[in-house]
């Protein structure tokens, strides 16, 4: 009876995951979708704790430890998720993803120990289960190690590192992992424990080497990919325990995550392979990009002059970028917007699909400061409007407004769709310095006659701008 109830709970859980994911795809229902999936997760967890029985019909024991673990995890997870700044959201997601990967990895390790206890030869082990365990462990470890590196990169703790032949080393390492995994399951007669842990170590190493050379700007794509990896690792657990809800949840995330990764790549007009081995911003590419010399001079503008320009404009478009997020300037930019609106200026935000460190990063950030949803205009819609725009204010964005993406085939970002701000009457660019953007390339836009630079931290510069506009009365 209890088993039947548990199976029904798992069925409901699976349906909530599918429905939740569907609802998450629509702005109006997204929040509900998240809560529905969370509900399914909760009933599945408690159903497992109280109703699960193994083949011998025994219930789970160690309930004290289980609840202890749940409590500790809930408190830490809840506090971390509540306290994290909106700007640090991408790395937080990466960190949580890594935790899931580590969880899958540990499950495989424990199951392996359990299965091999007192066993002396591979022949005695069930091959199907061993394969599932080892796949779950490899994918889980790669996801764990990779996510930690991605987290480190996004939070600035880990720098981009690439070395020569690193592509070959990675592929070689992958082959070695496959070889020893095969050895563990099929061949080695006595050393299967040693080879198992060797595979574990190498998988962790692979996770690190896999993410390390990929540029920080491409981290969202990598996180999305690792996200789907963890999904597959979870599905392996589902296969192992013949557990449908784990299987459904895992595979769903695995396939949806893979597609999401590809969609994100498309938004940057690059292929997944290009992101993974393209070595964005690495030595050779930068040299090629910088080879195109830029002639012209930089024109600096004071906040007071920029204020006059904007106050008497008919239409202002603000282009937010990562600099806005770093400086936490989302509230002051909203203040600027309302101030200009009250002066009768039409204000819009131009949102590039990959502005910031995650697709939709800017939307989340600006929504936090109560910027109205309909003021955020996507790239394809806003591009034709730049012709009729008086002032474009670029706040901490660089590569997404670089005209080289359209004109310079030697540029590493050539082909990426950009915001065509160069068509506007005036362009004011707020940057901290003349340092290149994440792609590590110069931006010719800054040298154009229509462009003027407003140097400084985004928050300070915009605050100054706001007070200057107020001073104009």
């Amino acid at each position: 009876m209890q088993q039947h109830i548990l199976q029904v709970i798992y069925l409901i859980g699976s349906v909530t995951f599918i429905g939740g994911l569907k609802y998450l795809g629509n702005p109006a229902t997204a929040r509900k979708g998240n809560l529905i999936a969370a509900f399914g997760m909760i009933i599945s967890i408690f159903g497992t704790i109280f109703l699960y029985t193994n083949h011998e019909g025994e219930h789970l024991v160690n309930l004290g430890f289980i609840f202890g673990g749940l409590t500790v995890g809930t408190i830490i997870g809840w506090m971390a998720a509540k306290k994290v700044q909106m700007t640090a959201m991408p790395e937080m997601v990466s960190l949580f993803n890594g935790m899931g990967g580590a969880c899958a990895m540990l499950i495989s390790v424990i199951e392996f120990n359990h299965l091999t206890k007192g066993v002396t030869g591979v022949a005695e082990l069930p091959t199907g289960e061993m394969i599932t365990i080892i796949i779950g462990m490899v994918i889980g470890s790669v996801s764990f190690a990779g996510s930690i590196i991605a987290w480190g990169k996004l939070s600035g703790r880990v720098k981009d590192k690439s070395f020569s032949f690193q592509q070959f080393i990675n592929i070689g390492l992958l082959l070695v992992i496959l070889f020893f995994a095969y050895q563990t399951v099929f061949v080695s007669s006595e050393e299967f424990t040693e080879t198992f842990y060797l595979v574990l170590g190498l998988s962790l190493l692979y996770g690190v080497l896999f993410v390390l050379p990929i540029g920080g700007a491409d981290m969202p794509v990598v996180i999305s990919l690792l996200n789907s990896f963890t999904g597959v690792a979870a599905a392996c657990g589902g296969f192992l325990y013949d557990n449908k809800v784990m299987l459904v949840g895992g595979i769903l995330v695995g396939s949806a995550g893979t597609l999401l990764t590809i969609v994100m790549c498309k938004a940057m007009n690059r292929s997944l392979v290009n992101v993974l081995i393209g070595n964005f911003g690495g030595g050779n590419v930068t040299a090629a990009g910088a080879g195109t010399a830029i002639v012209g001079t930089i024109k600096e503008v004071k906040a007071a002059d920029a204020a006059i320009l904007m106050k008497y404009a008919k239409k202002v478009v603000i282009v937010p970028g990562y600099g806005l997020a770093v400086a936490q300037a989302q509230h002051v930019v909203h203040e600027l917007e309302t101030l200009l609106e009250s002066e009768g200026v039409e204000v819009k935000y131009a949102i590039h699909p990959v502005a910031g460190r995650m697709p939709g990063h800017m939307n989340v950030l600006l929504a936090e400061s109560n910027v109205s949803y309909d003021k955020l205009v996507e790239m394809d819609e806003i591009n034709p409007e730049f012709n009729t725009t008086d002032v474009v204010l670029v706040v901490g964005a660089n590569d997404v407004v670089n005209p080289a993406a359209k004109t310079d085939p030697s540029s590493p970002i050539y082909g990426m769709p950009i915001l065509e701000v160069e068509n506007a009457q005036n362009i004011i660019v707020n940057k901290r310095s003349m340092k290149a953007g994440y792609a590590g390339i110069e931006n010719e836009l800054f040298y154009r006659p229509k462009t003027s630079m407003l140097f400084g931290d985004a928050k300070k510069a915009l605050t100054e701008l706001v007070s200057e506009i107020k001073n104009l009365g």
Partner: protein
Amino acid sequence: MEATLGFITDNLQLIYLIILMIFVGIELISHVPSVLHTPLMSGANAIHGVVIIGSIIVMGQASDTLSLLLGFFAVVLGTLNVVGGFVVTDRMLEMFKKKK
């Protein structure tokens, strides 16, 4: 060959389920506006936290100290993934609420 075929027929239901879910997953994500990519990724991140069920099962059957210890870690990490994932997603989506 026979072993492979046997493995497939033994797990036929699960294999069907996997294939169908792959297609459902792809279907669910196509046509999603790029605005929602981040919350969607975060929501999917929370859903694969379902791996915690595996850690609970392992933990509930653990008898030696090492398994208990590792299992405890697995439960904690899985919970972090689930709770953190859903709460972060909710915080992101909270900001999408309709303005007057």
